[in-house]
């Protein structure tokens, strides 16, 4: 066992700080009287109720059955059977985030998002944000009606006014600008084209919240394509990533995680990941080798690699400065894996991307791991266009601005400039779902539907299509963007041929017609539009042969793209590139990043995401400045201190693995105008952004930090980061594994040889449900945490409660550090109820509220539980969760609700899964292995007179795991996948020496290392 170090706090003899009880206002007793003041009557009534508490017996005697109404449909929809779920394939599109999904709907309410396994892109995987998106549908802060100057107006009035104004501007030769995120929906593009046809001179600017402008420009120069390539992580043996968090947030994380993790099986050919970065990202945590650099050093490091590669491949020598960090071997490895490697960089500096392209070109990766047949269409925004727009707006040259679904007043590098410019635009129309910084400045607000209320299509990659369909009628008086544009367009202007009626039929008709005309010819199976569209709708996707064929072919298609680019051999002078050396002055360089939960901050009012702990820092409800332990020691700051960096104040968190001399900070926080949940959470990092060569740079800006003396309370769900030498996560190097499949797992062998029980071992003759988690492929992306939360009605408790260690997630992802404090190795371990056959929790429950089923489940009966918490004390895995307060309003008492995230409003409650009990105050809850899914699978098997198929039964966590790390099934079924994994030499149980005999099995983590 290697040596694991203690957490930084404990090391310094200064244990984790618990919140100061006296500082917490609303938990203190004295605040009761504040409440009394605020809402005198209600509280007084509550007080009387309290008095009544002692007379329970008397009250019970007079108790009468509450009358409950049963209200059937007036006219029943055909496809709905009350009590049964329907599933609809659709697409998640949120800015540049894309995922093909299946939406679970109960009685017409979407309640859960699941991955669509049919999709070639997301392949059934999702991210935490995709999982959480269903909650945005029920966001109480959404626009409910069109607004004109802040007051409610009817659609017809708003439409008429905007139309006439647009017509007026258009006729007078004025400038109308439509600002959207990247539109990768082909039919929407057609709608916009029609809109442009109606108002000649209308300019369409696309802009991405997180810009990839540098890469787009570089690719245009290198390959002649203004697009992001189709990376094939599954084909690369060696991945070298410069700060690209492709497992977390970079471009298309679900797809990349699927591809990456498909190569993390040590029994097959395992890939190797070298991550060169400043912040300890999710990808960096999974790297086989991680090299820390400052953002400004990226160019120099790349140049060094280029020097080696160019020398080897082309025999030219480049005078590169000495590498600031030790990158020995990287170039050699890259050269060894020629054509089977992939070098990527997250930099938005065009010149860096040019250098990256050049290296990849020299390594022969273009056409192998970097393809352009199915290039990505999700990012096309160029920062230069946006800058131009802002300049013109400021100059008063823009007469009308239509903003759809972007928030430049928050996201743009120069928010103040944009806001000023917006004030000078004659007419501003905002088309979005919920209030934000931009909508605040808009004259008209035309609320658009949530994606679950909308029709749409998507072409995230060239020639790979998918459909989005509404699964619920618009909840509010909203209208989807495309319908609005169609309404404002002249019928038939520049649209499809002979489509006047389709325009009348709205976007649905338009979409139908578009698919019939443009996409149906791409396939040969369906000859009629209706079956073609219905089939595509049912599948959710349309991936015609051409795409797959060419994508699978390595040479033919891609060569043409490369040929149209420049000739790398001539005219490329790396020394002329501006690789950026950082600017400003100060000891620390900013390294901004997007957090796993919040991303760019578009879902800022989503309580599930806010409460999702960051996989690496395990902090939720916050962002913070990350500094390295060494730096912290030098500066005399510790986690929770508030520091001043330039004009900003932020709390710092001392993050092991943070590059020395850098200050990491997550984007997407500090939203000032947003729903009540996300408002003013964390600090806004956007003002730090700078522009260089017309591209937004996310890092490299220097600053000094100084202590303010103030402190900040973090809601951190894991405060001890070392395994203390315990064999919790067992790991081994690939070499050792090849020699002995039980490498790192010797304890398991020992355990198997010596185990024994006083009692007869129990048998599970029918089913025996089990789960296997492959720690090698698990990236720690936290998708499962939110999937579980959505499936199982897990309450959100809020920052203060999390800081008091009251979080409720049934599934958590433990993260341990090992090795050097400055450069630790990271392991992730998802832990949920282990469903022990010898469960210690069961013995100690006095009321028999938890016991063992004959199928190996550890059953928890909420309604029997009286809340002694003894089971949780006796659970060695600490996976049981207690409802400390009335979080859900499901209990016996009312008036004591603690819902910090508005999760109990009628609207938000629509997301609840009706098959899972909402737990009341004072009961223990825990992972049930998604028993509702097990029962439902058993039921349909019985109804269909058959056994249960292995693939039909999935828990919420296993179903959408983008890394396929979690496998659930019947261990008694010899053909099931879980049974096969049970045979693996890598298998062990967590704390198996305690002999709890868990049903959750872990497979050791194998790193691709020569040890």
């Amino acid at each position, binding site marked *: 066992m290697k040596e694991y170090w203690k957490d930084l706090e404990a090391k310094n003899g200064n244990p984790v700080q618990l919140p100061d009880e006296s500082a917490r206002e609303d938990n203190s007793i004295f605040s009761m009287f504040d409440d009394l003041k605020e809402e005198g009557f209600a509280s007084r009534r509550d007080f009387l109720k309290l008095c009544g508490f002692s007379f329970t017996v008397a009250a*019970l005697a007079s*108790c009468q*059955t509450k*009358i*409950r*109404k*049963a*209200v*059937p*449909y*007036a*006219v*029943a929809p055909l496809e709905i*059977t*009350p*009590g*049964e779920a329907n599933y609809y394939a659709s697409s998640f599109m949120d800015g540049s985030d894309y995922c093909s999904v299946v939406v679970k709907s109960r009685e017409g309410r979407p309640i859960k998002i699941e991955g669509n396994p049919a999709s070639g892109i997301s392949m059934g995987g999702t991210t935490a944000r995709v999982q959480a998106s269903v909650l945005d549908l029920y966001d109480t802060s959404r626009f409910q009606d069109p607004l004109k100057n802040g007051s409610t107006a009817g659609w017809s009035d708003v439409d008429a006014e905007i139309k006439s104004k647009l017509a007026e501007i258009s006729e007078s030769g004025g400038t109308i600008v439509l600002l959207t995120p990247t539109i990768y929906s082909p039919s929407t593009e057609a709608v916009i084209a029609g809109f442009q046809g109606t108002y000649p001179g209308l300019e369409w600017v696309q802009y991405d919240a997180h810009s990839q402008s540098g890469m787009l420009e570089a690719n245009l120069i290198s390959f002649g394509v203004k697009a992001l390539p189709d990376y094939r992580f599954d084909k690369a043996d060696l991945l070298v990533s410069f700060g690209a968090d492709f497992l977390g947030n970079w471009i298309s994380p679900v797809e990349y995680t699927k591809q990456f993790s498909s190569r993390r099986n040590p029994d097959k050919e395992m890939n190797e990941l070298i991550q060169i970065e400043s912040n300890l990202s999710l990808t960096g945590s999974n790297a086989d080798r991680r090299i820390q650099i400052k953002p400004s050093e990226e160019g120099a490091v790349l140049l060094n690699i280029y020097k080696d590669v160019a020398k080897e491949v082309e025999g030219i020598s480049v005078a590169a400065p000495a590498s600031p960090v030790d990158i020995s071997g990287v170039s050699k490895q890259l050269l060894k894996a020629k054509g089977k490697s992939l070098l990527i960089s997250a930099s938005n500096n065009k010149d860096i991307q040019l250098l990256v392209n050049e290296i990849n070109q020299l390594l022969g990766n273009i056409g192998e791991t970097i393809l352009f047949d199915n290039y990505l269409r999700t990012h096309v925004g160029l920062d230069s266009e946006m800058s131009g727009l802002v300049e013109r707006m400021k100059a008063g040259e823009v007469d009308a601005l239509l903003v759809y679904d972007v928030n430049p007043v928050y996201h743009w590098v120069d928010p103040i400039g944009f806001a000023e410019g917006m004030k000078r635009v004659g007419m501003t129309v905002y088309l979005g779902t919920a209030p934000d910084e931009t909508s605040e400045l808009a004259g008209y607000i035309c609320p658009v539907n949530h994606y679950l209320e909308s029709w749409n299509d998507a072409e995230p990659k060239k020639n790979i299509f998918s459909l989005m369909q509404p699964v619920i009628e618009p909840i509010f008086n909203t209208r989807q963007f495309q319908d609005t544009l169609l309404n404002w367009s002249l019928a038939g202007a520049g649209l499809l041929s002979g489509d006047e009626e389709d325009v009348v039929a709205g976007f649905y008709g338009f979409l139908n017609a578009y698919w019939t005309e443009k996409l149906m010819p791409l396939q040969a199976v369906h000859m009629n539009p209706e079956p073609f569209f219905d089939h595509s709708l049912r599948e959710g996707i349309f991936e015609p042969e051409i795409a797959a064929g060419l994508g699978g072919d390595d040479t033919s298609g891609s060569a043409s793209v490369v040929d149209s680019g420049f000739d790398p051999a001539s005219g490329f002078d790396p020394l002329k590139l501006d690789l950026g050396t950082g600017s400003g002055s100060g000891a620390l360089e900013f390294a901004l990043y997007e957090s796993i939960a919040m991303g760019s901050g578009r879902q800022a009012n989503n309580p599930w995401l806010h409460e999702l702990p960051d996989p690496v820092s395990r902090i939720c409800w916050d962002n913070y400045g990350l500094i390295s332990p060494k730096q912290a020691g030098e500066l005399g700051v510790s986690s929770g201190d508030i520091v001043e960096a330039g004009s900003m104040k932020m709390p710092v968190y001392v993050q092991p693995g943070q590059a020395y001399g850098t200050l990491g900070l997550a984007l997407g926080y500090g939203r000032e105008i947003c729903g009540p949940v996300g408002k003013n959470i964390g600090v806004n990092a956007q003002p730090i952004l700078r522009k260089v060569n017309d591209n937004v740079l996310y890092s490299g800006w220097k600053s000094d930090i100084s202590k303010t003396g103030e402190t900040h309370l973090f809601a951190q769900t894991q405060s001890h980061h070392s395994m203390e030498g315990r064999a919790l996560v067992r790991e081994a190097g690939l070499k050792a594994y090849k020699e002995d499949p039980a490498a790192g797992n010797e304890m398991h062998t020992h355990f198997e040889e010596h185990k024994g029980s006083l009692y007869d071992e129990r048998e599970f*003759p*029918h*089913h025996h449900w089990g789960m296997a988690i492959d720690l090698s492929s698990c990236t720690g992306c936290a998708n499962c945490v939110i999937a579980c939360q959505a499936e199982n009605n897990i309450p959100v408790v809020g920052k203060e409660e999390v800081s008091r260690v009251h979080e409720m997630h049934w599934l958590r992802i433990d993260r341990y550090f090992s090795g050097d404090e400055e450069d630790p190795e990271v392991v992730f371990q998802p832990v949920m109820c282990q469903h022990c056959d010898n469960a210690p929790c069961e013995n100690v429950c006095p009321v028999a509220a938890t*016991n063992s*089923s*004959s*199928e190996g*489940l550890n*059953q*928890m*009966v*909420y*309604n*029997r539980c009286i809340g002694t918490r003894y089971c949780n004390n006796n659970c060695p895995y600490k996976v049981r969760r207690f409802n400390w307060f009335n979080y859900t309003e*499901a209990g016996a008492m009312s008036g004591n609700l603690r819902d910090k995230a508005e999760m109990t409003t009628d609207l938000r409650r629509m997301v609840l899964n009706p*098959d*899972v*009990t*909402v737990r009341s105050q004072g009961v223990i809850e825990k992972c*049930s292995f998604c*028993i*509702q899914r097990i*029962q439902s699978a*058993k*039921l349909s*098997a*019985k*109804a269909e*007179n*058959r*056994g*249960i198929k292995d693939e039909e039964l999935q828990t919420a966590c296993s179903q959408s795991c983008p890394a396929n790390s979690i496998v659930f099934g019947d261990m008694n079924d010899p053909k099931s996948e879980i049974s096969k994994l049970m045979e693996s030499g890598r298998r062990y149980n967590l704390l198996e020496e305690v002999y709890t005999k868990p049903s959750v099995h872990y497979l050791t983590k194998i790193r691709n290392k020569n040890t």
Partner: protein
Amino acid sequence: MITKQSPGLKLVLFCMLGVSLVMQGYASEGGKNFSRMANSNGETCVDCHYFMESDTINWNPSAMDLASRAQIYAEDGISKYFTSPEGDVMKKAHDGYQISAGDESGIIAYLADLEGTSPSKVKHVKWRLILFAGMFVLLILLRVEKRRIRVLPKTARMLIRPLIWTVILVIALQDAVGFNRSKNYEPVQPIKFSHSIHYTDNKIDCNYCHSGVTKGKNAGIPPVSLCMNCHKHQQEGTRTGFFELRKIVQAAEDSIPIRWVRVHNLPDFTYFNHMQHVTIGGVECATCHGDVENMHTIKQVEDLSMGWCIDCHDITSVDFSNEYYKLYYPAYLDSLQTGKLDSVMVSDIMGRECAVCHY
């Protein structure tokens, strides 16, 4: 059929009416007429259009039911119901009434005043409570007897006292155990819908309306649109005339769902699936819902307690012809085939395990 009420009850009703009128400070002529005006059989309005729910169903619209239509009466008048009553039921009932214009407006005004109220419930004598309290009284009496009177032999006292305590304990225990159960719950429904008429008289299968019963968790209450499949053609009831059915027709026209009162309530923490029991288990509806075929108003006949559920699971055998059971319970299958077991009970295949219903 018009329910004849006993003279005693009539008197009670009359008194109640009088009291309620005084209470409201409203003693209109219409109110008097409502309880005075008689048809050829000598029945007054209030004889049929009752103010108090009876134990057995009263098919006539209550006074409050009528009141809910006061608006319509105010517009159309009510004399037409007497001069040309629609349908057989009303014809028979309204035969022989004489109504003057003055009476008419009085009654309408009276009904308008009643609008929004609902019929009161019959107060049943709580014999059990009286018995319980009586036992304590008896104890005191016995004590007094012992101290002062001393007529009973000592052995009698020794016998009676434990007897009384037994009765007290039994009542207390039974009530405590069955506390908060709603057995025999029989609420008044918004429409006088009779399962007996539909199922027994008209031979409509349960599944026709409660179609979810074989498909999933909920048996389902039919949408109004389903009612209209038949009631498009049958708009007059044999007992209720047009009055009750008009509610359905109206709901269908307005597409407004009917808000039934739910009778069989399971708590939210209990998962029950009809399909499992009906389709797979082959349980008859009546096993849990009782003799619905003879119920005019639906009534909860079982206490729907967990004990009741598992008692049934203990004695109900499993249909082992289902492939699922054959596949996963080979040992039982073997025993059944070799005759070692007569039958496998639901309890043997997880019928008593917590997470089957609670999750």
